[in-house]
């Protein structure tokens, strides 16, 4: 009886809908009865396993397709009758011109019977795209106060130093904030939303947000109505939750499942319900806690709303208040995630209240001048991705200019203090934004968010100075273009180490996208001070940057919309192409990465065919150098050494087992995968961004390198294997240095036709038949020998 017959019989007696019979059917199709008296040799065993895998694969495919066609027999969330879909009230329209409001808020906390060691901690607001904290001040009498960031939220800690003989102790925290009611753009992305690994926690279920339950999953599937565009799905989910009738607060019915089942809920419940629905749909979402300002001068209740990650930005929505993709400037966010606002020592009652007052702009800026000189500046550190970012600012009463300085290095405190002091002397408002980056690719990735997180600052600024190595500054501005943020009133200065021609092309793209008043490109490296001096002079005396730069004899390009037109015809087409690309949300750094690959291949051709170094394969060195470009050279080499070292050790242990190549490589891939995950976690724990991106290393290439290494080692000896490894790394390093350090990378973006030249050279090199450089070295003794023989013969002749 062949396996097909068995399969047909199974099919006759059991319908395919049953899970068990489906499995039996699939396995029967592939398993042969003669396989069963298994001779345990590796060959038959492997064949057997292969068939089982085939069967399981078919089973998975069948299950997936039948799950779509036939309904599962599991309980279905009681649908329409329990959760009626009422008509949705239209959400409040967002204003077309964002209005900015300034608020002064004081939090008073009273500890009734303070004892030394009592402890209170409270969540404090941070600046984000909507709101800017202009100043903050904590009362520090009788307590030790410190601020601590957990990466997402800022906590203030108060520790009572001395027991103050039963008189209640009053803790005060004051801050001034500026809030804009800007509307978020909804990117037209397809569903499922793509999310980075670090956002995985915004997809996880929790006790109050039961996004993993079948009921919620079914509901969200039903609400999607087959939509595939992200904004529409989000809107559908929002509309559903917003339409639920409000219910009185009840402690037990406040989780997502209860609200969705009951079809009614309070504000917190609705928030959690929407978060649960979003997470079930694969859209990262989180609860935001904050206070609503403006309706009363004193309050102590916080409210919560939702933020969903669409594309690269967190879009706010408040289903209870009826706001979608925008919030009025009365919403102050205090924290992200479901957290208690206040944590204090047990059994020590703490009373607290917010005192809220709306102030004018000038009042707010005066309030930004706190009493103690140390707190002139606010300094808050927030981790974004793996990078630590800082903002420091100072505000004066009647500013003559608003300057935002962006730096890709943490500014040393001395320099920062000097800049702030000078700014105050000259009546200039200054905000310093800075962050540390581990490699150029992180710089390009995260510097843009340093800008977009501080949009409120940028809106008010007259002058923006971006100082970053390489082309990161240009990319950061391009990214703002991608987000569609015009900067019409801004004069922008970008300093970096890019070739002038590259600056002209990318600068034209920026001008087309952001339409700033003026764009100044400076070739400049490192220190922020000269740039600040230039900015100061400009703000103070209104000297145009050009003249000022000419005094300082720095190469400068000044661009306006007029100069962008003066580019040659072909260059204008490239500019137009990249403009369209950026407008369609394509990231230019990513494009640049693709364009760099042919250059790396070119280096490889040179090193292999002209110099004559032998490497492990052709692709290994190329992909390795791509990985190095992401992680930076030092960490790249470390990751490579660790993974290849571990793998090779294991490979030698496997040698005695005489496994098939395929299973051997599969085992190696498992080892490589595990060590990559290990390094990623380790990197995240230690805060080493490059390490936590170990996943960028092409896994297959690593496994292949290990395999090649051992094969070479066995066939041609350890020395040879090490030599090949060294050459492979050498090629990778050379292309890294050649591309990263020489500015070739932005060059291909600005002049894609360079690749034509590369192809031409490669055509010529492909037909070149001469000796490789190392062959000259290898055979040189032949020539020496010939010379010696010739001399001897001449001597003989003359003697004879």
């Amino acid at each position, binding site marked *: 009886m062949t396996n097909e017959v068995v399969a047909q019989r199974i099919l006759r007696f059991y319908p395919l809908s049953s899970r068990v019979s489906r499995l039996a059917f699939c396995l029967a199709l592939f398993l042969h009865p003669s396989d069963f008296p298994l001779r345990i040799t590796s060959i038959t065993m492997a064949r057997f396993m292969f068939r089982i895998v085939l069967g399981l694969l078919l089973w998975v495919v069948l299950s997936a397709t039948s799950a779509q066609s036939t309904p599962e027999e599991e309980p279905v969330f009681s649908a329409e009758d329990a959760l009626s879909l009422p008509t949705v009230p239209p959400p409040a329209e967002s204003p077309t011109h964002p209005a900015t409001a300034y608020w002064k808020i004081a939090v008073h906390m009273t500890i009734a019977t303070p004892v030394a060691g009592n402890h209170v901690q409270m969540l404090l607001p941070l600046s984000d795209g909507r709101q800017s904290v202009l100043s903050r001040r904590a009362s520090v009498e009788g307590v030790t106060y410190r601020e601590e960031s957990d990466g997402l939220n800022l906590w203030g800690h108060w520790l009572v130093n001395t027991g103050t003989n039963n008189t209640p102790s009053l803790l005060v925290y004051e801050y001034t904030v500026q809030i804009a009611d800007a509307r978020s753009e909804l990117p037209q992305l397809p569903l499922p939303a793509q999310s980075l690994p670090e956002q995985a926690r915004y997809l996880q279920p929790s006790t109050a947000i039961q996004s993993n339950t079948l009921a919620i999953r079914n509901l969200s599937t039903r609400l999607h109505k087959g939509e595939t565009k992200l904004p529409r799905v989000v809107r559908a989910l929002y509309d559903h939750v917003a339409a639920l009738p409000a219910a009185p607060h009840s402690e037990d019915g406040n989780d997502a499942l209860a609200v969705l089942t009951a079809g009614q809920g309070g504000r917190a419940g609705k928030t959690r319900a929407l978060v649960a629905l979003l997470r079930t749909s694969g859209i990262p979402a989180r609860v935001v806690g904050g206070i609503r300002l403006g309706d009363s001068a004193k309050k102590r209740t916080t409210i919560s709303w939702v933020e969903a990650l669409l594309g690269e930005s967190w879009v706010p929505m408040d289903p209870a208040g009826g706001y979608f993709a925008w919030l009025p400037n009365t919403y102050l966010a205090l924290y992200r995630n479901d957290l208690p606002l206040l944590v204090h020592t047990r059994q020590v009652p703490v009373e607290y209240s917010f005192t809220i007052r709306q102030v004018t702009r000038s009042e707010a800026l005066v309030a930004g001048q706190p009493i103690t000189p140390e707190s002139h500046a606010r300094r808050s550190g927030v981790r974004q991705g793996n990078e630590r970012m800082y903002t420091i600012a100072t505000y004066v009463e009647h500013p003559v200019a608003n300057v935002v300085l962006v730096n890709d290095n943490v500014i040393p405190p001395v320099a920062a203090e000097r800049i702030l002091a000078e700014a105050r002397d000259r009546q200039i408002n200054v905000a310093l934004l800075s962050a540390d980056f581990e490699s150029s690719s992180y710089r390009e990735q995260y510097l843009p968010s340093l800008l977009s997180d501080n949009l409120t600052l940028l809106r008010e600024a007259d002058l923006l100075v971006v100082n970053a190595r390489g082309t990161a500054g240009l990319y950061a501005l391009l990214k703002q273009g991608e987000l569609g943020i015009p900067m019409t009133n801004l004069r922008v200065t970008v300093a970096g180490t890019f070739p002038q021609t590259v600056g002209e092309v990318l600068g034209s793209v920026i001008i087309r996208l952001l339409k700033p008043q003026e764009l100044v490109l400076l070739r400049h490296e490192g220190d922020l001070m000269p740039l600040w001096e230039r900015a100061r002079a400009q703000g103070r005396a209104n000297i145009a940057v050009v003249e000022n730069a000419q005094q300082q004899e720095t190469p400068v390009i000044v661009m306006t919309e007029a100069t962008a037109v003066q580019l040659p015809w072909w260059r204008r087409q490239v500019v137009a192409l990249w403009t369209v690309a950026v407008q369609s949300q394509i990231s230019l750094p990513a494009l640049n990465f693709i364009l760099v690959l042919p250059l790396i291949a070119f280096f490889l051709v040179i090193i292999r*065919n002209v110099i004559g170094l032998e490497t492990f394969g052709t692709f290994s060195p190329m992909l390795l150098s791509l990985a190095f470009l992401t992680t930076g050279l030092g960490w790249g080499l470390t990751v490579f050494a660790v993974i290849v070292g571990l793998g090779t050790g294991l490979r030698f242990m496997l040698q005695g087992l005489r496994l*098939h190549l395929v299973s051997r490589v599969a085992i190696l891939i498992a080892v490589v995968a595990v060590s990559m995950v290990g390094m990623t976690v380790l990197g995240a724990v230690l805060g080493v961004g490059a390490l936590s991106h170990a996943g960028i290393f092409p896994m297959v290439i690593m496994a292949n390198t290990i395999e090649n290494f051992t094969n070479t080692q066995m*066939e041609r*000896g350890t020395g040879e294997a090490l030599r090949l490894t060294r050459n492979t790394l050498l090629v990778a390093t050379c292309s890294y240095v050649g591309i990263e350090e020489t500015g070739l990378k932005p060059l291909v973006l600005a002049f894609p036709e360079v690749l034509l030249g590369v192809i031409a050279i490669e055509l010529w090199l492909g037909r070149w038949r001469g000796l490789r450089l190392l062959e*000259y070295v290898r055979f040189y003794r032949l020539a020496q020998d010939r010379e010696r023989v010739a001399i001897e013969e001449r001597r003989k002749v003359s003697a004879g």
Partner: protein
Amino acid sequence: MIRNLGFLAREVLGINRRNGEFMARHNPRHLFQTVDHKLKTKAALLAVGVPVAETLAVYRFQYETRRFAQDSRAWGEFVVKPAQGAGGEGVLVVTGYDGNGFLTVQGRGMPVRQLESHLSDILGGVFSLNQRYDEALVERCLHAHPLLAGLSFRGLPDIRVILYRGVPLMAMLRLATQQSKGRANLHAGGLGVGVDLTTGETVAAIAGKRWIHHHPDTDLPLLGVGIPQWSELLLTATRCADAVALGYLGVDLTLDVERGACVLELNARPGLAIQLANRQGLRPLLTAVDQKLVPGLPLHERMQLGQDIARLVVP
């Protein structure tokens, strides 16, 4: 210095030129499978009357391995090889049977069961580099002529001859050393000894990158040694060109005590170190063949042409 570099550029054949000019033009890709599969090579060679090591048995399917214990009684000494193996992996040299199991050349005992599983591994493609199912062949053991065997430190010495369009150009005797562990491959640490095509006398020797006079392990002189039955060896090598239509070909052969010249292997991508072992670049020889070769030249005249060219070009 400049003159030396110019000399190298004119005379020495490099990888770029070998691949781009000679292999691309004269070695069509589809013929590679003949030289990469030992059984196909042997069949092709036997068809034109080139002697090869006698095949005792071929195993193609798993069930045939059960026959092995019975088959092997008649053989005595033999070698087990994968048909598509590379780098000498999976090769097992058996010198006898002691009642419990086989004795390998390393002097280790090996039970029949273990040898059967070795065969099974070969069939499963464990040793074949392209990972396909492979075949296992058993060959009679070859014994090198005592004069050659005496030069080598263990292992089977062989002679590599480079043929271009059927004309022998250069020859090199390859010897095993202690470092190379019985293998005669140059990059494994074996010695390359250049051989004069006309006289069959050794002219120069290299170990790695050094020129040497004496074998590093046995201290025997390597230069000026006449290789026995040289014209028979060279003729056999030249005849290989009739078996495969590869224009640029390396032939590995040895001199067996009983059967005389015997071809071991053909190579479609022979290495370039032979130029160092002969103190002579290949390019003048290749050019001379292109100038002087008349198509359809018979075997003996091709060999004669090769020797003439060598005499003319080498000073």
